[in-house]
């Protein structure tokens, strides 16, 4: 009985957060699901229920291209960001003498506006930008290169920079947790440095790598700012299409269906990735 009273206290502490999240997350998503089953008629919605919007989302080739491109760009961004961050995190965890200094130095660039960090790449990659004017001064080119900006490449570079901290920190934490005596044992038993890394360090740091990959993949798939600023027509992503349905053409049911499909797609891919990465890490061990 006393336990019940204690439990009630615990549920009481949990309740406010659940109420807020129910109100701000569950109810809006439910409404979005309902809206996606309607069709737009004038400024309101039609009476009946329909799967037309989902038909359009899955059926139109131009939409499929945008989904595919968003996932492809995000996957490349995730891969590049994690691959670049891993050696950096490894250095801080195992070789840096002043870890704290390095951790602060690595996070300072992220303490300014996300919008302006993205915009900075427009300045760097632009027609009169840092790279073009630098190359021209060195007489390596006589015309500015137009291929740097407004394409998927620019989106990948910009996002890999913008989300770097989300890769470095989780990987660093998981490397830092590794019991150093395991590494000594591997060396004592005759493993080479490479073999030791592949059999001990890498598998044990996988939780950090997986965490980083999910933390980067989910938000970058739905990113709106970066494709808008540096993507150009060839770098447009799914969020741009969704935004237009709400602010531009005003087709809320279609926008809702696009949102839910992209959400589901991201969840399925992230889930599959986590499961297979875990299985792979186990297989190595």
């Amino acid at each position, binding site marked *: 009985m006393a336990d019940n009273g204690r439990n009630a206290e615990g549920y009481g502490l949990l309740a406010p957060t659940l109420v807020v999240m129910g109100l701000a997350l569950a109810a809006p998503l439910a*409404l979005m699901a309902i809206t996606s089953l309607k069709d737009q008629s004038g400024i309101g919605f039609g009476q009946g229920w329909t799967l037309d919007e989902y038909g359009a989302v899955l059926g139109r080739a131009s939409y499929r291209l945008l989904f595919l491109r968003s996932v492809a760009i995000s996957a490349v961004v995730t891969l590049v960001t994690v691959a670049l*961050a891993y050696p*950096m995190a490894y250095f801080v965890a195992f070789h840096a003498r002043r870890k704290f200094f390095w951790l602060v130095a690595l996070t300072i660039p992220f303490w300014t506006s996300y919008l302006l960090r993205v915009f900075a790449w427009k300045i760097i990659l632009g027609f009169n930008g*840092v790279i073009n*004017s630098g190359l021209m001064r060195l007489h390596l080119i006589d015309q500015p290169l137009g291929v740097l900006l407004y394409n998927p490449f620019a989106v990948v570079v910009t996002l890999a*920079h913008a989300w770097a901290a989300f890769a470095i920190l989780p990987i660093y934490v998981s490397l830092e947790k590794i019991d150093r005596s395991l590494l000594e044992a591997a060396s004592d038993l005759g493993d080479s440095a490479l073999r030791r890394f592949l059999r001990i360090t890498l598998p044990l740091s996988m939780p950090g790598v997986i965490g980083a990959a999910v933390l980067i993949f989910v938000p970058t798939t739905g990113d709106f700012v970066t494709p808008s600023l540096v993507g150009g027509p060839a770098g447009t992503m799914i*969020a741009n299409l969704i935004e237009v349905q709400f602010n531009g053409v005003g087709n809320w049911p279609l926008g809702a269906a696009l949102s839910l499909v992209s959400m589901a797609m991201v969840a399925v891919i992230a889930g599959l990735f986590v499961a297979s990465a875990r299985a792979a890490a186990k297989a190595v061990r």
Partner: protein
Amino acid sequence: MKNKSLLLYAFAYLAFLYVPVLVLPVFSFNDSQFIAFPLSGFTTRWYGALAGDSAMQHALGNSLKVGIVTALLSTMLGLAAARAVTRYRLRGAGAALGFISLPLFIPDIVLGLSLLMLLGAMGLPLSLAAVVLGHLLVCVPFALTVLIARFEGFDRNLEEASADLGEDGWMTFWRITAPLMLPGIIASLLLTFITSFDEFLVAFFLSGTEATLPIYIWGQLRFPERLPMVLALGAVILAVSVVLVICAEYVRNLGVKDRVVGA
């Protein structure tokens, strides 16, 4: 040999992180409307223009309001929920935790738009309050993660000892739990404030006519002649955050020293 190449890589990586960010201060002092090389001379006039821009000040005020309210609310909610999952054995605690962390796995644009639809259906106006609600979605999972780690990090025997010595629940909270939680609370407040202060997409859909600072910046990016001033704003945000972070770390280290001496 291997260490040297890693060190070299570390510095190259640092350059990759810093060069784009340094573009902000460099061009904010450049005496030209055009953001292009070569630089044409030193000026502080963009900072002057920034100081005199009333729309910017209004947006800054809005962002500070939203950021402070979001930080306080999400840390309070996170504190209660973190205590519930670490100090009680509740059925369904895992599911509740999963539900609260769900926004981490949903793109921001979907969070913002679904709230926009709900407000529309309920006939509620877009406002800064709506932005706070949206920011709670993004910030509560962060607050919860930080605070759970802190709750798990300290010895719960201290709380039990306090209860055994006759303190009631409230006094135990104030004399034991709150002081030990303080570093976690400060970290949570800082993280949620910064997240809210910098959040663009959710606010973009929910703020209506009241711009927050990122929305103001977004609006300015369309006007080339306003850019140097916006870069000056970015440089100021960077400088203030760096000072804040260094102060926070300094305070945190003081706390660590006190505890060592106290022990």
